[in-house]
């Protein structure tokens, strides 16, 4: 008898619908108005690579040790350097990073002994050409500059 009433009056259906309507509360609205509000990503987010610069003297922190290139599974970092006779150290000349093949695994960032190479929180890396995805030293130091929109 109870089963009959449960079947005829769609009790299980009402129970399910109640859960659905309970969650319709406007306070649960989740939509982010991109691109006016950009999503906040975590501090450790592995996004666009950046070559850090020493804030005091404006020189690059990279010591051209090539550890990042060796660590990369895809071999997409090319570091060239020349020896500076005055200080008898290697100095970085060019640094090429191919973001089109990068899987943002973070192995290069882990390998860098001086924290020069870092994966930042930038995730807008799109480019109109394939060549635009291959970043040279300047692009790496400045970072991608996505257009900022005002709503």
């Amino acid at each position, binding site marked *: 008898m109870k089963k009959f009433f449960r*079947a005829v009056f769609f009790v*299980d*259906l009402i*129970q*399910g619908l109640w*859960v*659905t309507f309970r*969650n319709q509360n406007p306070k649960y609205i*989740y939509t982010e108005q991109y691109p006016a509000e950009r999503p906040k*990503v*975590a*501090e*450790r*987010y*592995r996004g666009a690579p950046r070559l850090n610069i020493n804030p005091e003297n404006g020189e690059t922190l990279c010591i051209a040790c090539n550890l990042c290139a060796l*660590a*990369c*599974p895809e071999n997409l970092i090319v570091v060239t350097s020349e020896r500076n006779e005055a200080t008898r150290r290697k100095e970085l000349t060019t640094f090429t990073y191919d973001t089109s093949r990068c*899987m*943002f*695994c*973070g*192995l290069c960032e*882990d390998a860098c002994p001086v924290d020069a190479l870092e*994966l930042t929180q930038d995730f807008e890396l799109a480019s109109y050409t394939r060549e635009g995805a291959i970043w040279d030293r300047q692009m790496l130091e400045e970072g991608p500059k996505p257009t900022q929109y005002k709503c």
Partner: protein
Amino acid sequence: MADATFLDSTELVLNMGPQHPSTHGVLRVILKLDGEKVLGTDCVIGYLHRGVEKIAENRTYQQFNPYVDRMDYVAAVSNGLGYCLAVEKLLNVEAPPRAQVTRVILTELNRIASHLLWLGTHALDIGAITPVFYCFREREEILKIFENYCGARLTTHAFRIGGLQYELYDGFEEQCKAFCDMFLPKVDEYEELLTSNRIWVSRLKGVGILNAEECKEYGVTGPVLRAAGVKWDLRKAQPYSGYEQYDFDIPTAQNGDTYDRYSVRMQEMRQSVRIIRQAVDKIPSGPIGKTPKVVKPATGEVYVSIEAPKGELGYFIVSDNSTQPYRVRVRPPSFINLQALDRMVRGGLVADVVAIIGTLDIVLGEVDR
């Protein structure tokens, strides 16, 4: 002049092609039908074959670590755990206790995330559109924890050989506990939506029965095996990474049909929350592990397997004492579970094929590697 024989039912071959919303990836199933009843199937896979095992032979052990996440991309942390455990066994190192407890927490969160995605997509295949949003809303919380921890949501690359790379961030324990507290009532919500829903029950009960004998013959593991009544879980049978310290149950069911697999996975989510709560309380302090500078294991081979959300995920690594593995073989649970599809759909309807593919919880990244 119509030939009377055209009304006879003959075998119809229908292609459930690689582009199909319900096949959970690029899976092609060639169905042989008699009307709407399925006589047999032939699965064509390989559309997502990327040659991961070949890539492994050309990378060093540490460099291969990010690639394993891409196989079962839904639950990437487990893949990483299996690989790291296998290489650590070859090297005869063990991760320090702090790393082990953290690995357990992340792996169990990963199991919940995988089951949530399974529930959402399975319900969507059956026709229930609401659960997928709720499941993804909860999954979002887990992915936020992953992102806060290692910087990526899906392809986490969370573990390293020898332990962890990243120290736990401030607020990790609180966030995990808050998630657990938030999550259990949500599981009740999903059950309220689905468990006694007459449509759900009639779509799922009695469909795709695979009993214990057949499971063992086909080598099927994971929730499918447990739903058939075999109380076997690698976390209890051959514990790894400190699982013996935690108190949890292994949910099983009797019939081995789709409805039982659903209830087993729901119970597993609850048990995972139990494990996370226990683990979060006992994170020891200490080092998080250090990958050896040069990973060059001695010549040898080892097979290590873990209980991934989909089944037994095993890594068979052959080393020849160089920095690159000689052969890495991944034993993919989805590949082997998918073999049982043929047996499970016999005699069912086409709609049941969709339900059964959903209940096997396959991820084509793992099937094809």
